[in-house]
């Protein structure tokens, strides 16, 4: 069988984008969260790539659905707490508030913000950084701490808005 050339692959990808863009695109909350958490760098088509941020980031199942893992539940609780305090926040703000709080939703010993930084799943105790917490914390702090996951500012460069 003849190998597929790079040009053919590019054409196929372009067609896939044209024909199925709407169906393939990430859902609303992940479209907001992925750049905010710096998970999109180096991937020009990140908004069409579900591997950038899997459903298991917040859901129990890889396929999503109504069951939320501890990190997803922590986001929900953040919305509720903010509303109870009379603050109307959107998803990026709620995510930032949660990561700033220093919590460890899945109880694996690594705070959620450090798991985001290390690209492991903050809602799955079986997924956690391999490096010692102290070493990771130093690197995390040097990179700006939880502030690096602040919501993008309107019209500004923000934290990785596309």
């Amino acid at each position, binding site marked *: 069988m003849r190998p597929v050339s790079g040009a053919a692959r590019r054409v196929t990808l372009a067609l896939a984008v044209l024909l199925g863009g709407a169906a393939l695109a990430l859902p609303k*909350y992940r479209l907001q969260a992925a750049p905010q958490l710096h998970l999109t760098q180096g991937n020009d088509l990140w908004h069409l790539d579900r591997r950038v941020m899997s459903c298991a980031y917040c859901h129990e199942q890889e396929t999503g659905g109504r069951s939320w893992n501890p990190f997803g539940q922590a986001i929900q609780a953040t*919305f*509720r707490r903010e*509303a109870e305090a009379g603050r109307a926040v*959107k*998803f990026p*703000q709620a995510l930032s508030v949660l990561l700033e709080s220093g919590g460890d939703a899945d109880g694996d010993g690594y705070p959620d913000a450090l798991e985001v930084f290390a690209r492991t799943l903050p809602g799955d105790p079986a997924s956690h950084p391999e490096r010692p917490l102290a070493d990771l914390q130093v690197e995390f702090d040097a990179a700006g701490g939880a502030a690096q996951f602040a919501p993008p500012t309107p019209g500004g460069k923000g934290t990785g808005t596309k």
Partner: protein
Amino acid sequence: MTNRRDFLKLSALAAAATTGMPGFLARAAAQAGGSKTLVVIQLSGGNDGLNTLVPYSNGAYYAARPNIAIPRKDVLTLSPDLGMHPALRPLMGLWDSGRLAWMENVGYPNPNRSHFASMAIWHTADPSQAQSDGWIGRIAEQIGDPFCASNVGAATPQALRASEFSLPSIDAVDRFQLKLPQGLGGAFEQMMGAARSGEAAYLTQATRQMMQNTARVQANAQKYRSGATYPEGRFAEQLRDTARLIAAGVGQRVLYVSLGGFDTHAGQRAEQDELLGTLASGLAAFHADLERQGLAENVVVMGFSEFGRRVAENGSAGTDHGKGSVMFALGRGVRGGIHGSSPDLEDLSDGDIKYRQDFRGVYAEALSGWLGLNAREILNGDFSGPGWLA
């Protein structure tokens, strides 16, 4: 010398080169007929009706929504029991002048909570989901003109798909222009100038007519000067383009504009408050523009969403997919007021309101009462509406 086959190929090329707004709008001006335009606003995602038209005197509303209900002090009072979300303040002038109508408790039998399925039901006007063509597509079939309606936006919604064709989408009026590919101008002029007879003569004449109409439409579109200051944002831009198309006299009977983001599962107050503000400020500017251009008499706006949201708030200070919701209409041709009875929040269906007004009745009034079309044929049945037209 150019032969007949070359002529047809070049004509097709010319048609392709002139594809888009000028060509089909010129055709629309010639064929659609009728002086009245319906502008349909789609609120995508499932707009929460209870926080839009707020039952502020109902304790059950506040009990179900301890964190996201609109406080009574903030509600824009319309009646002793109902009021608008405060972000809708730009529409208060229309309400006060009797040009804003709210249709309460609108839905359809066997409600579907899926965005995709429910939107398809509203688009096809068929809760059985047996039909694949849209209700506006069927308008085009009844009028006999595939250019009598357009979506103002990127992708044509199912509502504008007929059984054999899809009505056009105009992403931005300014981007459409009559332009031949570079180097083909001379060949095209030579082709058009050649003496012909029979089919070829007809095609030449039709092409010339299209170009003349196109030039007229372009000139009219160029002459448009907005009669109002529109807010910033894509939705307002699309409404401005809609006003521009109406002002250009292109004769389109239905124009379709969408505003998305109403799927407020979390942090509803922040999300919906902003969206309703965008909706209201855009529509207020649109109506003011039409008024100043002397066009308001012939335009009504009708808005819907694929479903409302559940009565009780969820654990994320948001609401999940529900069933019935509200519709709205505005314009000089509208009978202002609140039409229909409010949902009984203490008699729910699985946590959702029980709809009382079938949305096809609202459509039917737009079709027969405003556009002068056969609603029964387009909707495949007789449906009574709430009487929202003046």
